C-alpha cells in the first residue's frame, strides 16, 4: 500500500500534517470486528484460514484481527507477517527498503490466506505480496482485507473485506493508527529521500 511506504520513507524535511480524523478508536475496533465476522461467514468457519499482516501498517491490525477471531470462534488462527520490499515493481524508482521481518511459520499449501494491510491505494503492494506468496506454496485462496480503501488503483485488485471506503485526492496521505484514521498532507519541500 503506497501510502504506508510514503509515510515510512518520509523525506527528512517533510512532515505529515493531519487534517481530518475519519475514524476514531471505536470505529476502528468495530470495523475490525465486522471484518472478522465477514471472514468467518465467507469461509464458513476458520478451517485452514491463516492471517498475514503486510509490514508495517498491516501487522498490528492483523494481530488484532486474529485476537478477535479467537474470541468469536474460539480458534487460534495461524498468524504471519510479510515484508514485500524485494517484490516491488518500483525498485530503483524510489526508496525501497525492507521495513520489518517476514515471518511465515506455516506452509501455505492448501490454506486460505487472508492478507491484511492498513490502506489499499494503487494496489502495487498487494501485487508484490501475491508474487511473494506464490513462491511459498499454493494457497487454495487468497483474500484481501484492508482498513481503508482510498481508491486510485493502478492494477486490477479489489479487496474482499473493507473497513471503510474513503475517497481521497491522490496527493493526500492516509494514516492508520491504533486509535484513529486521519487524512492529511505531506508538508515541506525536503530533498533528502534517504531512509534515516
Amino acid at each position, binding site marked *: 500500500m*503506497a501510502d504506508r*511506504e*510514503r509515510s515510512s520513507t518520509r*523525506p*527528512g524535511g517533510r512532515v505529515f500534517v493531519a487534517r481530518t480524523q475519519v475514524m476514531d478508536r471505536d470505529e476502528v475496533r468495530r470495523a475490525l470486528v465486522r471484518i472478522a465476522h465477514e471472514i468467518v461467514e465467507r469461509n464458513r468457519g476458520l478451517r485452514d484460514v491463516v492471517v498475514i499482516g503486510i509490514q508495517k501498517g498491516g501487522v498490528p491490525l492483523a494481530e488484532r484481527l486474529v485476537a478477535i477471531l479467537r474470541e468469536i470462534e474460539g480458534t487460534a488462527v495461524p498468524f504471519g507477517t510479510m*515484508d514485500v*520490499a*524485494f*517484490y*516491488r515493481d*518500483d*525498485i*530503483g*524508482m*524510489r*526508496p*525501497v*527498503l*525492507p521495513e520489518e*521481518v*517476514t*515471518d511465515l511459520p506455516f506452509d501455505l499449501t492448501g490454506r486460505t490466506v487472508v492478507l491484511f494491510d492498513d490502506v489499499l491505494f494503487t494496489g502495487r503492494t498487494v501485487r508484490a505480496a501475491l*508474487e*511473494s506468496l506464490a*513462491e*511459498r506454496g499454493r494457497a487454495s485462496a487468497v483474500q484481501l482485507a484492508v482498513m481503508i480503501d482510498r481508491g486510485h488503483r493502478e492494477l486490477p485488485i479489489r479487496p474482499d473485506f473493507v473497513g471503510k471506503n474513503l475517497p481521497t485526492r*491522490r*496527493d493526500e496521505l492516509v494514516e492508520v493508527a491504533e486509535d484513529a484514521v486521519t487524512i492529511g498532507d*505531506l508538508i515541506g519541500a525536503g*530533498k*533528502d*529521500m*534517504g*531512509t*534515516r
Partner: protein
Amino acid sequence: MRAPGTSTSTGVSPDEAGNEIGAAWASGVPEAAGAGSPVAGEDLLVGHRAPAVRHLLSIADLGRDGILEIMRLSDAFAEVAERPIPKVPALRGRTVATVFMEPSTRTRLSFETAAKRLSADVMTFTASTSAAVKGESLRDTVETIDAMGIDAMVIRHHASGAPLRVTDWVGASVINAGDGTHEHPTQALLDCYTIREALTARRDGAVPADMSGLRVAIVGDIKHSRVARSNVLAFAALGADVVLVAPPTLMPASLEGWPVTATGDLDSTLGGLDVIYLLRIQSERLGEVLLPSLDEYHWRYGLTRARADALKRDALIMHPGPMIRGVEISPEVADMPASLVTRQVRNGVVVRMAVLFHLLGSGVM
C-alpha cells in the same frame, strides 16, 4: 579473502605500501559517499529521476551509518536465505558483471550467488580466459564490458586503486572486491555482520548497537592485507578496540592515523580478546624473506590449541579464508565451535546481496 597462489605484488615497495595505508585511511573517496549523501529526489507520484551512480570502493565510503544500514539490510536477506526458494525479484532486469583480474573463486562465486538470488543477470569476466591475456588494457576491458549495458561492476585487481580509476571509465556502480593491498570492503562488512550475528545469538536475540566494548585482534600479514585494512576501518567505525598483531616484517611501516594499537606479542594479547581475526599467511610471499619459515610463524603467531585455551571462553575466532591449517591456525582449532569461518562464508552471500541492493535497488541514491 585471497585465493591461494594469488600474487599480491602491487609494484610498490613495502615502504610505499606502508604510506599508502595511511593515505587510504585519510582520504576515503568522497564522491562515492553513498550512504550518507542527501539525495535530490522527488515523490514517487511525481516520477522517476535518474539517481546518481554510487560505488563501494572503501569502507570509508560507508562510514558508521552506512555500515549499520548494510547490517540491517543483511538481516532481511538472511531471512530470504532461509526460505525454500531463497531468491527474490528485487534486481530483476539488472546486470552485474564480475571482473576478476586476479585469481579468486570464493569471492567471485559469493558475489555471483548474491546477484542471482536478487534475480539479476550475471556476466563473468576472468582475466585468464579473456582478452586481457592478449594485452588489452584495463580501461579497454572495462569500457567494453560497460558498453554491453551493465548496472554494477564487481572488480578485483592486483593494483591498489584500480577500482577508483574504473569509476572514471564506466557508468555502472563499481564495487571493489579487493584491490592490491588497499581494501576489500565487502569482506569487512561480512565480518562485522558475522560478529553482530554471534553477539545477537549470545544475547537472546538482542541486536548490539555496534562493536563498542569489544577488543579485536587482527593477526598476521597486516602489511600486505587489504582485508586487514578494511576491517580496521570497519571495526573502528563501529567502536571496537583494535589491536594489530604481527612480526615486525609484516607490520606496516607506519600506523600513523590508524585507530589501532600494535604489538608483536600474541601471547600476552590473548586473554583480553573478544575476537581474534587471523589473516592468511601468503606463502607465495616467503620469497621476500619476510618470514624465516611457516613453522616458525605457526610457533609464534599461529592459533594453536594452547593459545585457543588462553582465550576467553566466549571469544570468537575468525578467518577470511582460505585457511592454511597448520600455519595461521591449527586444524583442531579451525573446527572448534568458537570458529565462525563457515558462518563468514554463508554471511558473505547475504551481505553482498545487501550491498548490491543498497547500491542498485534501494533507490536511496
